[in-house]
């Protein structure tokens, strides 16, 4: 059975400095502000499609933080705004994607928003079908091990993905070859509208790890430091050649699946309000205050300073060039190194 992380880890024990904590908090706030702005732009008719992150900031920042930019590989799914921020994507680049602009680093406006990708940053391009990226992540980890690189692959997905055959096929192979990879399930209890009891007969996705011969860990996904601790252990394990870990972060999404969804048809408002009491950003603020790392004024300042920065990048992205329709036929096949 999966291990459950229950103790509240102190940041000192995790090796995080006050500066690290402040940076983590700022990233969570940035993700939340990106979300709020994206929905605002959706209502204004400027952003036809938004995939929200709100509620997932804790598990995303916690599990992405132990990986290293430029060395490790990121295989995110569509909800991972905070993961790609930590991988090095800027809010400007995220909004280029939201507005489908020519310089959108993921696809030049070809894909729907939140379908991440950047070879420069080591963020692997992904599609819309669920769980198809899981064998890719295992193949990348195999190649990294074969090439004797000191790289770890982080691979994120929702609990619905764990029902798909490709998910099983990827984890099975990763287990057989003890690959340097960490699988992170952001379990928000709903795959669009289908609740977990209709998705699987078990309470914990992490229990499935036993079938692949590696550890499964359940962690409170709204506790950023608990997520960080679980990921840090898993990354160290992967880097030292001991193989994969499956981390299940229990969390909740505050908004509908996408801007095109209406979650009132499958979730009560009471349930959503109750979940908001466990807002990972609010909880982390309390932790920071209790630890004496930030006071109310400092926390307020993060929001006040971040919002205009995000808004400025939205304006910049909105004014960027649209894709040129004459490029429709480009990049079907290789066009040369500068193609």
């Amino acid at each position, binding site marked *: 059975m999966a291990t459950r992380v229950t103790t509240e880890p102190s940041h000192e024990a995790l090796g995080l400095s006050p500066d690290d904590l402040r940076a983590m908090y700022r990233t969570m706030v940035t993700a939340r502000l990106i979300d709020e702005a994206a929905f605002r732009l959706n209502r204004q008719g400027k952003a036809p499609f938004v995939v929200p992150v709100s509620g997932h900031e804790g598990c995303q920042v916690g599990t992405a933080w132990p990986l290293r930019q430029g060395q490790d590989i990121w295989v995110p799914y569509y909800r991972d705004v905070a993961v790609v921020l930590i991988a090095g994507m800027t809010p400007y680049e995220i909004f280029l994607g939201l507005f489908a602009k020519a310089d959108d680093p993921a696809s030049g406006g070809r894909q729907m928003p939140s379908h991440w990708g950047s070879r420069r940053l080591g963020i692997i391009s992904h599609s819309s079908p669920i769980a198809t990226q899981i*064998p*890719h992540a295992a193949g990348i980890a195999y190649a990294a091990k074969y090439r004797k690189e000191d790289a770890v692959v982080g691979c994120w997905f929702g609990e619905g993905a764990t029902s798909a055959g490709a998910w099983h096929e990827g984890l099975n192979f990763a287990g057989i070859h003890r690959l340097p990879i960490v699988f992170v399930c952001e379990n928000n209890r709903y795959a669009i509208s289908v609740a977990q009891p209709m998705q699987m007969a078990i309470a914990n996705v992490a229990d499935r790890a036993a079938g692949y011969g590696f550890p499964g860990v359940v962690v409170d996904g709204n506790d950023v430091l608990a997520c960080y601790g679980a990921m840090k252990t898993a990354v160290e394990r992967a880097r030292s050649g001991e193989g994969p870990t499956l981390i299940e972060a229990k969390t909740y999404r505050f908004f509908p699946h996408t801007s095109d969804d209406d979650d009132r048809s499958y979730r009560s408002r009471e349930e959503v309000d109750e979940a908001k009491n466990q807002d990972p950003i609010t909880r982390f603020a309390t932790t920071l205050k209790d630890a004496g790392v930030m006071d109310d004024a400092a926390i307020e300042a993060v929001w006040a300073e971040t919002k205009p920065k995000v808004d400025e990048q939205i304006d910049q992205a909105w004014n960027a060039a649209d894709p040129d329709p004459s490029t429709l036929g480009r*990049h079907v096949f290789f066009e040369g190194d500068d193609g």
Partner: protein
Amino acid sequence: MTEKNVVTAIHDTLHDEMAADDRVVVLGEDIAVRGGVFRVTQGFLDEFGEERVIDTPLAEAGIIGLAVGMALHGLLPVAEIEFADFIHPAFDQMVSEVARMRYRSNGDFGLPMVVRAPWGGGVHGALYHSQSIEAFYGHIPGIKVVVPSTPADASGMLRSAIKDPDPVLFLEHKRTYRLIKGDVPDEPFEVPIGKADVKREGDDLTAVSYGLSLHLCLEAASRLQDEHGVSVEVVDVRTISPLDAETILASVRKTGKAMVVYEDNRTYGAGAEIAATIAEECLFDLDGPIVRLGGPDVPAMGFASNLEQAFLLDADLIAERMLQLARF
């Protein structure tokens, strides 16, 4: 030059490419310890080791998905699907991932990978070891689909496929593996992907084909020359996608008559695309109707010898239709 059959040519080429470049890895079911069910990778495990010769779990979507990951991270994977019939679980990987990686990333990511699969009938393979799959993938921009039918083409095109920066579905007609022999150059050489080849020159009509059917066309053409003095030009398609229309059309313009011969179910098969291309581009060069000779529109060939034969084309039927067209 050394005379080889098709399967030996593929084995030797894959071997040489692995020996020349340690980025090349092979993965698939039964390919390591067993050396492949058709022995394409025989001896590879001992020579190249288990890191480069990978027996995978029995999961085709996983095999293709793993190859995608390997290709994204510096390797040149050659994945084997044991029988083309078993690739269907990987259709999503092939269509949504393999074919679209470069396009969807606006050229940022590419997939230098090869998927090898034995296809076609005539070996008592029945419903699930005989299928033609080229039309499914010929329809998908972003994947190159090749169907070499001679030992030299198989060797030269496999080398091209491994060096190609884009994904190549490399289809090997399993009946040709040991049936078809031919000279193969001893030094490494490439046969370009996307180029058809005139396998027999002639003046009276053009037969366009690939796979086992190509060899049936060559036999029928030889017979027509000997028995009726009819001169048939036989064009080997070699690449289903991207199709070399130029070579096909040049031949049809010369002879004025066109026949397309393929083993797959006739409807919506690759031959339909070739026939349509001929109709669009050189209708006024034609002296007779385009003839399309394909497999019957039933789900598959049967196991019993006579059921299998009833599905497959043969040289007699092809010769008869060629003569009809020549006399039109």
